[in-house]
């Protein structure tokens, strides 16, 4: 939410999209960010092929080893390779954040923002008030409450489905965890997007070409998705980029609290929790290093990219 203020005075002309890409390419930092994200995410997605170890492989002949040529990031107290587990953690974070962004940010947030901005009146009031309720829960307490109270319910449901149908292994695959976490993230993530899109629509609603479209009898759906949506793309792009940084952070917090992907599947949050207590810090400080850097790179790259995008799209600062 921190960035809403900065985005507030963003008025963007989308006809200049190719030039905007040129300007973005000129920003070296943005390119570095894109590359860093690509490399990290690719390694995460192909974690199984990239790493010679499995994430649960315990090698008792090499426990608590500091980084060396066999284990680039060292091993933990059961001899598991820290780098391998980090990559799998990145994969989990990637899946969860992308799912939450697609459903919460793009589908729910953009649609509600479009509706609220264009319809105005009661629709606008109801949508924005609901958003305000979501936003008035203290910080991410809502996400924690949701994740903590929903998980057992959904687990029950999954068990019931397993028992009463032929579908098997729902609980074992951990699909439930993915569902719970993305649901909690979605509840948290749509409000910011809806507000920004609404703001943009409010400015565009009275534009001549929208009136023209209305005059020739275009349907509301057509006006919303063919005329208004394309003109919000730049706001959406910036919000997605910064939102991905925020979502990544929230996902790590959730799994840090033990509400995310459950062990034995590795997640960055649980790894950081394990590495962060004073005993582990004293014995094996390297356990913090690689997962910490991976988490940091994901958050910082999205944020810097979002910043560069908003610069490149904002005619005021050109």
């Amino acid at each position, binding site marked *: 939410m921190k960035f809403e203020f900065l985005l507030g005075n963003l008025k963007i002309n989308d006809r200049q999209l190719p030039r905007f890409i040129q300007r973005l390419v000129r920003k070296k930092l943005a390119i570095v960010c894109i590359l860093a994200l690509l490399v990290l995410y690719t390694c995460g997605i192909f974690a199984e092929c990239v790493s010679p170890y499995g994430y649960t492989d315990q090698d008792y002949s090499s426990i608590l080893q500091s980084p060396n040529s066999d284990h680039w990031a060292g091993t933990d107290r059961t001899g598991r390779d820290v780098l391998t587990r980090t990559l799998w953690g990145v994969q989990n974070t990637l899946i969860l954040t992308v799912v939450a962004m697609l459903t919460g940010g793009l589908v729910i947030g953009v649609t509600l923002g479009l509706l609220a901005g264009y319809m105005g009146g009661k629709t606008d009031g109801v949508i924005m008030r609901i958003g305000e309720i979501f936003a008035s829960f203290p910080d991410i307490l809502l996400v924690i409450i949701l994740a*903590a109270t929903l998980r057992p319910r959904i687990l029950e449901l999954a068990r019931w489905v397993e028992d009463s149908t032929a579908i098997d292994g729902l609980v074992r695959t951990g699909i439930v965890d993915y569902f719970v976490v993305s649901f909690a993230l979605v509840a948290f993530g749509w409000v910011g997007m809806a507000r920004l899109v609404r703001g943009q629509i409010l400015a565009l609603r009275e534009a001549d070409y929208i009136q023209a479209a209305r005059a020739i009898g275009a349907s509301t759906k057509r006006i919303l998705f063919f005329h208004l949506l394309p003109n919000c793309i730049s706001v959406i792009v910036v919000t997605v980029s910064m939102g991905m940084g925020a979502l990544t952070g929230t996902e790590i*917090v959730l799994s840090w609290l033990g509400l995310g992907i459950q062990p034995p599947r590795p997640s960055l949050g649980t790894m950081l929790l394990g590495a962060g207590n004073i005993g582990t810090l004293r014995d094996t400080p390297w356990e913090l290093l690689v997962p910490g850097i991976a988490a940091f790179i994901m958050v910082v790259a999205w944020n810097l990219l979002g910043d560069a995008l908003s610069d490149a799209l904002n005619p005021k600062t050109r």
Partner: protein
Amino acid sequence: MWIYIVRRLVWIPILLLFVSLVTFALGRFGPGDPVVVMLGNRYDESTAERLRDELGLNRSFVVQYGDYMWGFFKGDFGESLRFRGRPVRDLILPKMWVSAQLGFAALIISVGIGLPLGFFIATRQGSWIDPTSVALSLFIMSIPVMVIAPALLWVGCLKLSWFPCSGWGGFFDSRLVIPAIVMGVPGIAGMTRIMRASTLDVLGQDFIRTARAKGLSEWKVNSVHVFQNAMIPIVTILAFSCAGLIGGAFITETILGIPGIGRFAVDAIFDRDYPVIMAITLIGSIAFVIANLIADISYAFIDPRIRLN
């Protein structure tokens, strides 16, 4: 102006009603029976039933909710389920005080350094200082707390032994340093960015050119015209930061062993201690909503254009 304030005031109770209903419903219909948690391995059907009766947990939802809210407005937040017989108010007030002190220390760091820095950077537009510091501030803001807190602990306590490793000893205790840095430094970056953006916005406006044109000294232009107007949006941010003081920071508090409200809230969520969860969520929301209101009203007072709309 007054109509505006009244309209905002009317909306607040409705907002809080929804927040309390959602929290209460999530707590009651969510899984995990507090009675089971309380009894532990002494659980048997008849004791559980008696305890439920005693706590009023088998009354209807509406009655329980109404009863709770009535107590809440009289300043009675109920009794904790985890610490039997201890009123929630006595449990959470000292913890809030700890979190507020910590938050205040962090706020001093971020405002004291961030505001002047942001102003300075904005007046140096066009030199290398500006883009570098903007990128740097985002860089610092993006470090996850659960990475930086252990990292500082490792450096400051294990390697250099400058500070004790964890715990709390009040505002003037060396144990405050690490948590205040962990919470305050990202704040510096945030403050700097916001102050810079706000100052730039003011610098580009006509009345600044007029002030220069009528021959005011550069210092006078900066201090009176630019700085004062740039502070308008900052007021909002500061109001929110003050609301955040009560909320605590559960990650920092947990890692660094500080007995604050954030850590207590998370423990309460896991132990299904409904009265505590309710009280913390409600107080947090009230603080947040009121901060929001104060910010909006002060906006309207400072900037006449908002008032007239």
